[in-house]
């Protein structure tokens, strides 16, 4: 099987995964809107939480994966790791846009403001901008070997930066709702809501996997095409 065929197979697998995840998303929407009780204090606005929190999780996962793959690339210098890191960063940026738009839509009725310089809001915004910068840098470097090395360096530095940004904005001030699940005591979210949230988390993780696979397959195809073009020229 040639590299092109393998890449096409990856794209097809990714598409299947994405379709499954999107069907799951429909189920989550229906369940969240029709079969999950309305929260007593926040009313219907709280529903967005079933999208916002999972999409935030998926985008942070995407960035973490990009950082770890960057570390891997610097050690192994495997081109596939670079393409996978790039795909993860791109999917992460897309998911971040969903996170950064659903957040303010919820924030306006509940906090009374679209945006506030809270701990989680600021740190995710800076992280988002950092990875946009990562993609901009990739776009500006023509040589693929240099591009892979430089973006891996940036990915590793981004990984090291995250704890510092978190601490900085945390000390600045915080207003974001406190964790309701991942905390030392038992989860304070009622059972039905918790199940909806966990389902949504699984769906968004799957969606990330689907997007990542498709994007990676496309990146390999692009690579193959460039190689063929270079071959024809020489």
């Amino acid at each position, binding site marked *: 099987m040639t590299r092109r065929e393998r890449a096409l197979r990856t794209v097809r697998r990714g598409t299947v995964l994405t379709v499954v995840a999107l069907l799951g998303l429909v189920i989550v929407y229906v369940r969240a809107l029709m079969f999950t009780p309305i929260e007593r204090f926040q009313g219907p606005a709280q529903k967005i939480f079933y999208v916002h929190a999972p999409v935030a999780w998926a985008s942070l996962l995407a960035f973490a994966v990009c950082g770890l793959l960057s570390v891997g690339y610097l050690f192994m210098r495997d081109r596939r790791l670079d393409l996978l890191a790039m795909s993860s960063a791109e999917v992460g940026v897309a998911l971040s846009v969903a996170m950064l738009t659903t957040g303010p839509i919820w924030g306006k009725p509940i906090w009374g403001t679209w945006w506030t310089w809270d701990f989680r809001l600021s740190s995710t915004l800076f992280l988002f901008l950092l990875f946009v910068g990562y993609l901009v840098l990739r776009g500006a470097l023509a040589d693929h070997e240099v591009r892979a090395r430089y973006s891996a360096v940036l990915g590793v530095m981004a990984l090291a930066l995250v704890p*510092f940004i978190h601490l900085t904005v945390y000390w600045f001030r915080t207003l974001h709702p406190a964790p309701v699940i991942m905390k030392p005591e038992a989860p304070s979210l009622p059972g039905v809501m918790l199940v909806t949230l966990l389902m949504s988390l699984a769906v968004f993780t799957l969606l990330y996997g689907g997007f990542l696979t498709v994007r990676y397959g496309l990146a390999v195809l692009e690579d193959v095409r460039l190689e063929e073009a270079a071959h024809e020229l020489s």
Partner: protein
Amino acid sequence: MTTRTAMAIALKDLAIEWRTKTAFMSSLVFAVLVLAILFFARDATAVSAFDLAPGALWVTFTFAGMLGLNRAFLVERENHSLDGLRLSPATPTAIFLGKVTGNLIFVGVVELVSLPLFVVFYDIAIWRQVPLLLTVIAMATVAFVAVGTVLSAMVVRTRFSEVMLPVLLLPFLVPPIVGAVQITWRILAERPLAEMSGWLSLLGAFDIVFFALALLLFDAIITE
């Protein structure tokens, strides 16, 4: 050996700068302009110059310093002198240390010249706090220069390096600059040291982590 090579590289950069003074003069004039514009960019009846001062100082230092960082590798781009540097027996570590030293001196001098202007413009009495303020400036500058040197070595390979550097560098400057502003206002307000120890540790940790990381990663940037 590494130290001597590094010194030679730093001195070479500073000698180029000394003969033209282009980057230094632009950074300095830029710093004065930013300080002056920020002074007027406020409602004087609502925000006192004193309240604005810490932020203004660090915004000025950051932007003025960034002009200098761009220069460090741009001079190497002409006539492919970076290739020459790579072919020389100088190790990547020596090149990094040389560039960092040159940048530290460059940014440090710009800061030291604009600091008195800041004191005069914003009418701030800082005599007693000078040692502490200089310590914070030194700590934040090391953070800024270590990360900036690595990133400027990368962006010099791109076409729009002058625009690219701020886009990549500014997210990394969030912790050191926010920390430095927090410490600076406490210093100017003569608050006890205990109130700023947390931010000082953050700044110190950032310096150590990112200087070490920059040193390790520079090899992957410079070696073909």
